[in-house]
């Protein structure tokens, strides 16, 4: 049973469709690395309440939190872990939740020329809607937080659980898209620039279009956009620099993109889309993890050898046939996934537990059982 080796990796990004257990896998990978002695940060997005509990986080606090590893370490020492089960007391695990809105506010405060300018932006209507609902913002903020975490030299391994984006590229492309919006010539032409003649054909056309839109829709976009762009002036360079660093970090040798999926037919198709999108974005897929795979089925011969009523044996055979059909369905999915695997990437399986993961030891168990397909 060959394990997943992330020893040379500093940053692991878990990507995948919604509902496949990205957060669980992220936490399991982080926990495994911490128990083996590395200094680990795991950043989760929108975790299930139980995972929050397991990681010692609560619904309101987004501050990094040290996870108590004593119980998991003791269990790992006692257990029989022939390969890769080494433990070390040196490691630590910090868990944190991503709060897009708070992070965005913090960035604006950092880049804004003055506290007053920062507050003007934060109170603006466009910004309020952007920070609250524009899908790209959560993605962008995850990237921002990553830059902060990677800046700490003591941290040896960082695991990032990504927002449930419908497409991997939404997440990876977030810095560029936000910049494109801020930088768009058309938008910046709308901003009133004191001391400069800002007429011109493009400007007038854009204004006319927005004014017409406002008239029919009842919005006040023209004014809002003008205020937004004006407030952001002077902050653009700060954002651009961060975006360039984020892009470089994502493509570093020590960064691993890990696609997480389950074996359901629909999810496999989505995972294939993710893999293709990562390729187009020039990102290496380190591995693909299929979560919640079925365990080995029991031996049918046992039924025949057992001393049992014939009716019960028939039912056991039926049960085995039923689950074998599901196992075949799963194998068909694995084949489809193998066909979509990029060169150099590893296909791994994370077998299902008997119950939904709810404790640190559940996460440790999941992490320990991830193996090559």
């Amino acid at each position, binding site marked *: 049973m060959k394990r997943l080796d992330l020893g040379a990796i500093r940053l692991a990004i878990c990507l995948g469709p*919604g*509902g*496949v257990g990205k957060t669980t896998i992220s936490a399991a990978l982080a926990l495994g690395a911490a128990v083996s002695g590395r200094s680990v940060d795991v950043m989760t997005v*929108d975790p*299930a309440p*139980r995972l929050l509990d397991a990681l010692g986080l609560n619904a309101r606090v987004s501050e990094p939190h040290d996870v108590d590893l004593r119980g998991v370490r003791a269990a790992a020492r006692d257990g029989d872990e022939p390969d890769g089960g080494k433990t070390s007391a040196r490691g630590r695990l910090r868990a944190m939740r991503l709060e897009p809105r708070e992070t965005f506010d913090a960035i604006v405060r950092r880049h804004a020329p003055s506290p007053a300018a920062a507050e003007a932006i934060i109170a603006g*209507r*466009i910004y309020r*809607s*952007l920070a*609250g*609902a*524009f899908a790209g913002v959560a993605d962008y903020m995850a990237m921002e937080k990553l830059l902060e975490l990677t800046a700490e030299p003591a941290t040896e391994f960082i695991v990032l659980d990504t927002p*449930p984006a*419908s497409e991997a590229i939404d997440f990876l492309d977030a810095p560029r898209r936000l910049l494109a*919006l801020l930088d*768009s010539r*058309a*938008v910046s032409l*709308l901003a009133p620039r004191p001391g400069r003649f800002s007429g011109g054909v493009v400007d007038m056309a*854009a204004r006319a*279009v*927005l004014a*017409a*839109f406002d*008239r*029919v*829709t*009842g*919005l006040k*976009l023209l004014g809002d956009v003008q205020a937004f762009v004006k407030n952001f002036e002077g902050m653009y360079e700060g954002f651009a620099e961060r975006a360039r660093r984020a892009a470089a970090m994502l493509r570093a040798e020590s960064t691993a993109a890990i696609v997480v999926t*389950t074996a*359901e*037919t*629909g*999810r496999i*198709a*989505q995972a294939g*889309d993710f893999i293709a999108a990562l390729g187009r974005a020039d990102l290496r897929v380190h591995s693909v993890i299929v979560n919640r795979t079925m365990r080995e089925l*029991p031996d049918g011969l046992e039924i025949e050898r*057992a*001393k*049992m*009523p014939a009716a*019960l044996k028939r*039912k*056991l055979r*039926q*049960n*085995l*046939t*039923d*689950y074998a*059909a*599901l196992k*075949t*369905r799963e194998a*068909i999915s694995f084949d489809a996934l193998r066909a979509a695997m990029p060169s150099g990437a590893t296909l791994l399986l994370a077998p299902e537990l*008997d119950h*939904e993961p709810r404790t640190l030891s559940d996460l440790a168990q999941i992490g320990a059982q991830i193996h090559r397909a």
Partner: protein
Amino acid sequence: MALARLLFVTGKGGTGKSTVAAAVAHALSLERPTLLADLDPRLSAAAMLLGAPLSGAAPVRVAANLEVIALNARAELEAFMRRIVPVAAISRRMLKSRTFGYVTAALPGLEAFLMLERLRIMAGDAALEDRRVVVDGPASGTALELLSVARGVKGIAPAGALNRIAHSVESFLRDPERFGVILTVTPEELAIREALELAAALREHLGIATVAAVMNRVPTPLFSRAELDALKPLPAHRHLAERREHTRAAARRARRVFSHAGIRMLDLAMLYRPTMSRAEVEELGVTLAAEMPTL
């Protein structure tokens, strides 16, 4: 009370929304013409299940009584502009303007909002022709955001066309004859909890009715308690047998929990088949059709 004209299918990721949406559409199509609308044109999983890979915006007929359509946010924006700006040249110019593109992209929820307006129109058209509409919606969290968007639009547009549309969208969503939600669940604690929370949020914050919860992948029973006990000499087989019966029991318990919350639960049996394709979806649809009239 009559079943809602438009049924919006949502649930936790991984509970089989697209399968259930396709099965519900098949079930309804056994009685009258039905349209299955996919809100995610890139994936159109429900359409694929019915063997109809969608390519364009036009509906595809997959059976005598069943059509599938993919809804596209950009197309909705264009249709909206054509509607509110009567002069074609002007609406074209607005759509072509880069500024307008940036601003509408940054204006959260506008596209989602127009998608809801489209659903309202589809439900109205369907009522005239006595058809039904089934929507393969997004996962619970996104669905709640989507269905809440009209309120946000009223906030940013206190008057004008958008405000008027927001009002009509809200009354559409609150009208149980026109709009109803079908929740998908599997016999797992998290999925059940998420469905109950979503139903409560829809009812309390938006006045939206949940028509039913569809419990997907319910194992067919096989072993009695005494039989499970008799399996002690074969622990691995016993484990597999218990798993089946435990999952079955979890589904039964959920029925009580949902009924407590005033929600009917319909079972969809786990199909022990190596493939999940159109034949299986139609089989699920037939079992659902038997329970539909009771809704």
